[in-house]
């Protein structure tokens, strides 16, 4: 295809992505290093006879408007927003580093800072859910693959539901069930014979519930992909292994899993990207008191009466940096593969 033809074919999609993905990223970066102007204040002395003179501080509307017009981006603050208490909290962390003697004290201090709390949950969620989804998905795929043909269709149909359903709605459905008055909540209370047990009340249990939701939501994705991979298993290799006396487990370990390895990489990549942006379950589970994620952090800044764009932008930039770090190994590998091909 000639360059010019390619250009015209690709133009609409390129324009959409440039305008609504690339530019917003740039504008997010800009917003994170500029803060909105505060109003210009002037002191006016008002004198009334008999009472005397008082100094009053008022907003100079004209000067404020002029300032905002002359520098529409706002005040340049550099990395201040990144370093403030709501984000990386550099001075607080440095202070704690100096003052706390033990590691556990330092970690506890960190967990009081909102951004580090969100970070801790996001990373825990990402790195627990991703491997769990892969293992659980693989187990389901192996089990379903040896079912009767007519059962397979049924299981696949219902398996798709948790994955296809809107994350917020899926989270709500589970949340209502684990409510202390819901069926799972009641069942848990009965199991541990503690009638006051509430998953909503404890941070640890809330984290576990969110992680269970994450696995429930994404396992079907891994399952479908591994199941498709199992359909192309090299039967001759499996039979050869069997003749050589390999047990069932050994066949899975040494034939099936290596065959599925590229798919595992793919699922891991997609899951890392998706779990890092965990957000809807926190809204659905109403869990902000116990667990916040970076995406929830941004959402919280943007919503409400005061839209804190600068703060949200700084969190966004930090998220983008986080995503890039996660993706970097994959990108480097793909690039090397590509170079090797040409």
């Amino acid at each position, binding site marked *: 295809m000639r360059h010019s033809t390619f250009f015209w074919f690709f133009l609409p999609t390129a324009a959409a992505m440039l305008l609504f993905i690339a530019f917003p990223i740039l504008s997010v970066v800009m917003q994170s290093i500029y803060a909105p102007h505060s109003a210009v204040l002037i002191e006016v002395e008002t004198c009334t006879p008999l009472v005397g003179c008082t100094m009053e501080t008022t907003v100079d509307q004209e000067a404020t408007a002029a300032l905002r017009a002359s520098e529409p981006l706002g005040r340049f603050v550099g990395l201040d927003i990144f370093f403030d208490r709501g984000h990386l909290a550099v001075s607080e962390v440095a202070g704690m580093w100096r003052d706390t003697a033990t590691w556990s004290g330092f970690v506890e201090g960190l967990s009081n800072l909102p951004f580090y709390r969100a970070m801790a949950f996001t990373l825990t969620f990402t790195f627990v859910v991703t491997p769990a989804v892969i293992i659980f998905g693989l187990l389901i795929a192996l089990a379903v693959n040896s079912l009767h043909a007519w059962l397979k269709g049924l*299981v696949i149909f219902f398996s798709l539901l948790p994955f296809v359903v809107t994350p917020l709605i899926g989270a709500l459905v589970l949340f209502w069930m684990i409510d202390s008055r819901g069926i799972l909540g009641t069942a848990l209370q009965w199991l541990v014979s503690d009638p006051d047990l509430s998953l909503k009340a404890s941070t640890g249990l809330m984290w576990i519930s969110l992680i269970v939701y994450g696995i429930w939501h994404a396992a079907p994705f891994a399952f479908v992909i591994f199941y498709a991979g199992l359909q192309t298993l090299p039967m001759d290799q499996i039979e050869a292994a069997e003749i050589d006396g390999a047990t069932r487990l050994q066949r899975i370990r040494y034939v099936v899993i290596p065959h599925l390895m590229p798919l595992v990489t*793919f699922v891991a990549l997609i899951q890392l990207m998706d779990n890092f942006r965990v957000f809807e379950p926190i809204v659905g589970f109403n869990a902000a008191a116990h667990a916040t994620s970076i995406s929830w952090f941004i959402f919280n800044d943007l919503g409400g009466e005061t839209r804190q764009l600068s703060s949200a932008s700084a969190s966004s930039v930090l998220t983008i940096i986080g995503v890039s770090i996660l993706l970097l190994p994959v990108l480097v590998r793909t690039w090397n593969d590509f170079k090797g091909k040409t």
Partner: protein
Amino acid sequence: MSSRARKQPLGLQILIYGFAGLWLIMAAFPFLWTAWGSFKVELDFFSIADWTYALTGERTKAEYGSPFTDAGYKGAWIQESFYRNVINTFIICFFVVCTSLTIGTLGGYALSRSNYRYTFILLITALIFRAMPPITLVAGYMLPFFQWNVWGLMPTTIIVLVAINQPFTLWMLHSFFQNIPKELDESAKVDGCTQFQAFRHVIIPVMWPGVITTGLFSFLLAYNDFAVTAMLLSEENRTMVPQVAAFLGTTYTEGNIMFAVASVVSATAPLFILVMFFQRQIVSGLTQGAVKG
């Protein structure tokens, strides 16, 4: 295929069936339970007295004379005008799917038919864009949209959702197009077609399965979106998902949680039907990316 490798001892078979059954219950039960409970009153759905009330609907019987009531649905659809959110959702989904398929097929076709280095770079860029959480972009939209006075409108949200869907759409269509032999459009060009005519009259007719599958995923992305629609739509243009979230904000205080339950079930129903009819396409779409990517 039905060799000895497939034969399993009874214990293993029981284990396999047990595990598959357990997963089946895990996947299906929450939805069935919620759908059943949505026809009850709140005191049955969240039963303090006895959990079996949720099944038998004792309180619902006491209040309405029958174990089922449509009070939750009436409250949500009529009193809270949930039907408007449903209409908004389908308008937005329709235009998102149409637009992203139109520009996506053009772009994906171009990517699959060009062998220059920049196609690879473009695909990797799309992958990076795919990794960006949409909520991080929303912070960048706010200021310009307020300034241009386009915040809260449906067309704005449609364009944003189309753009956010593009990386995924491109990857998927790209891999579908690569499965179509290049000789097909080469020979059309030899016969005197321009590249666009070859695309329009030769490629598109054989592309429908791929286009439908990609369209399904575009639909799901638009339908399931919460971060963008919650932030960019004004109250009267809201789609279902942000409306459900809004119900929660008000209903927890009013004690009318059944509105939220009814709207959740209403929003799940179209997806249920979708999976029923397009199960094959969804599975093939999911695996397409894996096999190629």
